[in-house]
C-alpha cells in the first residue's frame, strides 16, 4: 500500500463528497415526499390513481437503478432533442448534461417507490382508533393526519428511513455513469493513471462504512427523540 497516495487523496475528496451528499440528501427529501404521497393515495384507495401507482411502484422496484439512470441521462435528453428539432418545442437541450439533475431525478423516482412501501406499512400500523379519536374532537382529515397520524407513522418509519438513506449514499455511486464525479467516480479517476485502485477503493470503502455508521446512529437518536411517547419517559 502506498500511504503517501492515501494521505494525498483524502484532502482532495471534499468536492466529490459534497456531490455524494447532495445527491443522497436531495433524492431523499424529494423521494420521501413523493413516497408519502403515493402511500397516502394507496392507503386511501383513490381508485384509478392507486392502481396506476401500484404498477409504478412494482415497476420501479424491479428495474435496476442503473437502467433508470441511463433513462434519465440518455433517453430523456434524446427525446427532448428530437422534439426540439422536429416540432420546435421551446425546451432546453440537455443532452450531455453532467450536472446532478439526471442522477437525482432517477434516484428520486426510485426512492419514491421504495419509500412508499415503508410509509404504507407505517401508516397501516397506526391503530384505527387514532383517526377516529381525532375526528371525534372535530379535526378535519388533514388536521388529523398532520397532528396525530404522521407523527406516529414517522417514528415507526424511521428505522427503515435510516436504511433507505444509507442505500441512497451507496447508490449515488452510480451517478458516475452520468458523468458526475462523486466519491466513487473520484476514486476511480484518481487511481486510473497509476493503477492504484487498491489504495483508492480501500479509502472510499472505509469512508462509506463511516458514513453508514454515522447515519445509522443519527437515525437511532432521532427515533429515540421522536418516539419518547412509546417508551413513556415522563416529561418534567
Amino acid at each position, binding site marked *: 500500500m502506498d500511504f503517501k497516495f492515501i494521505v494525498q487523496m483524502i484532502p482532495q475528496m471534499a468536492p466529490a463528497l459534497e456531490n455524494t451528499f447532495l445527491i443522497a440528501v436531495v433524492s431523499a427529501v424529494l423521494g420521501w415526499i413523493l413516497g408519502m404521497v403515493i402511500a397516502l393515495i394507496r392507503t386511501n384507495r383513490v381508485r384509478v390513481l392507486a392502481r396506476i401507482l401500484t404498477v409504478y411502484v412494482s415497476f420501479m422496484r424491479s428495474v435496476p437503478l442503473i437502467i433508470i439512470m441511463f433513462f434519465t441521462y440518455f433517453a430523456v435528453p434524446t427525446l427532448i432533442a428530437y422534439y426540439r428539432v422536429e416540432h420546435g418545442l421551446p425546451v432546453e437541450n440537455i443532452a450531455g448534461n453532467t450536472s446532478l439533475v439526471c442522477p437525482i431525478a432517477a434516484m428520486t423516482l426510485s426512492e419514491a417507490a421504495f419509500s412508499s412501501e415503508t410509509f404504507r406499512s407505517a401508516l397501516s400500523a397506526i391503530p384505527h382508533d387514532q383517526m377516529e379519536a381525532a375526528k371525534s374532537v372535530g379535526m378535519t382529515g388533514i*388536521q388529523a393526519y398532520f397532528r396525530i397520524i404522521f407523527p406516529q407513522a414517522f*417514528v415507526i418509519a424511521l428505522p427503515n428511513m435510516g436504511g433507505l438513506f444509507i442505500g441512497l449514499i451507496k447508490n449515488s455511486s452510480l451517478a458516475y455513469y452520468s458523468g458526475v464525479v462523486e466519491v466513487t467516480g473520484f476514486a476511480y479517476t484518481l487511481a486510473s493513471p497509476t493503477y492504484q485502485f487498491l489504495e483508492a477503493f480501500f479509502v472510499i470503502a472505509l469512508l462509506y462504512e463511516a458514513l453508514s455508521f454515522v447515519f445509522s446512529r443519527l437515525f437511532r437518536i432521532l427515533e429515540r427523540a421522536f418516539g419518547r411517547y412509546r417508551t413513556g419517559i415522563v416529561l418534567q
Partner: protein
Amino acid sequence: MIKIDDLKKSFGRNQILKGVSIEVEQGGVTVIIGPSGSGKTTLLRCIDFLERADSGRLTLGDITVDLEKCHKKDILAIRRKCAFVFQNYGLFQNKTALENVMEGLTVVQKKSREEARRIAAETLDWVGLSDRMDYYPVNLSGGQQQRVGIARAVALSPDVILFDEPTSALDPELVGETLELIKKVANRGITMIVVTHEMAFAQDVANQVIFMDEGVVVEAGTPGEVFSHPKNERTKQFLARIIPEDTIYYI
C-alpha cells in the same frame, strides 16, 4: 336537544339499524341498554359520523341534517358539537394527558395555547389527574386513561357527550370510581347518551332508558318504567337475564 329520526344502517346485506328514533332532552342523561350485537355502538358512531348512516335525520341544537345526503361541512359542524368517550379510551398516543385535552381546544376551537392549557389543566384537575398531566398514555392505567378521555370530552364543552361502554374495558375495582366521575359529568348538566351494561348506574343517573334489540328501539322510558314495569316481553327477558332477581326492585 338531540333528536334522531328513522336512522337506518346496513353493513353489506346486514341491516344493523332498522329505523331508530330517539329524542334526548337538553341536559338529560339517556342510557341505552340491550344485548350484544343489537346495534348500540353503531348508533352512537352514526351520530358522530364515525360510521355513515344510510338514511334518517339528525337534529342537534339548531342543526338538522339529512343523514343520507349531508355534506362535509355539516358533518364537521355536528362532530364539533359532539364528543365521544371510547370503550378503549382512544387517547392520542403521541400526546401527553395535558396535550390530549388541549388538542381539540387549540386545533379545532382555535383557542390560544395559554387558554387551552388553562382549561385542560383545570379539567384534568377536576377528574383527579392533576399529578399525571405530563404522562403519556402508555404510562397511565386504564382507569386514568379513561379519565383523560372523559376530560378531553368535557373540556370541549360539547352539546352532547356520547359514551360507548366507558367502563367495560376496566378492571372491576376501577369501574365504580369511573362511574362516579361520569355521574359528576352528568351533574354539570351536560347532555349525555351512555351505552352501558351497568344497570345500577342507569337506575341512578338516567332520566331516560332505552332498550334496543336487533336494531330497533324496543322500549323507552324513565328508569322506573323500564326497569320496574317493562311492558315488552323482550325487555323483561333481557332484564331477567342481566339483573339478579332480588336486586332489581331495591336499587
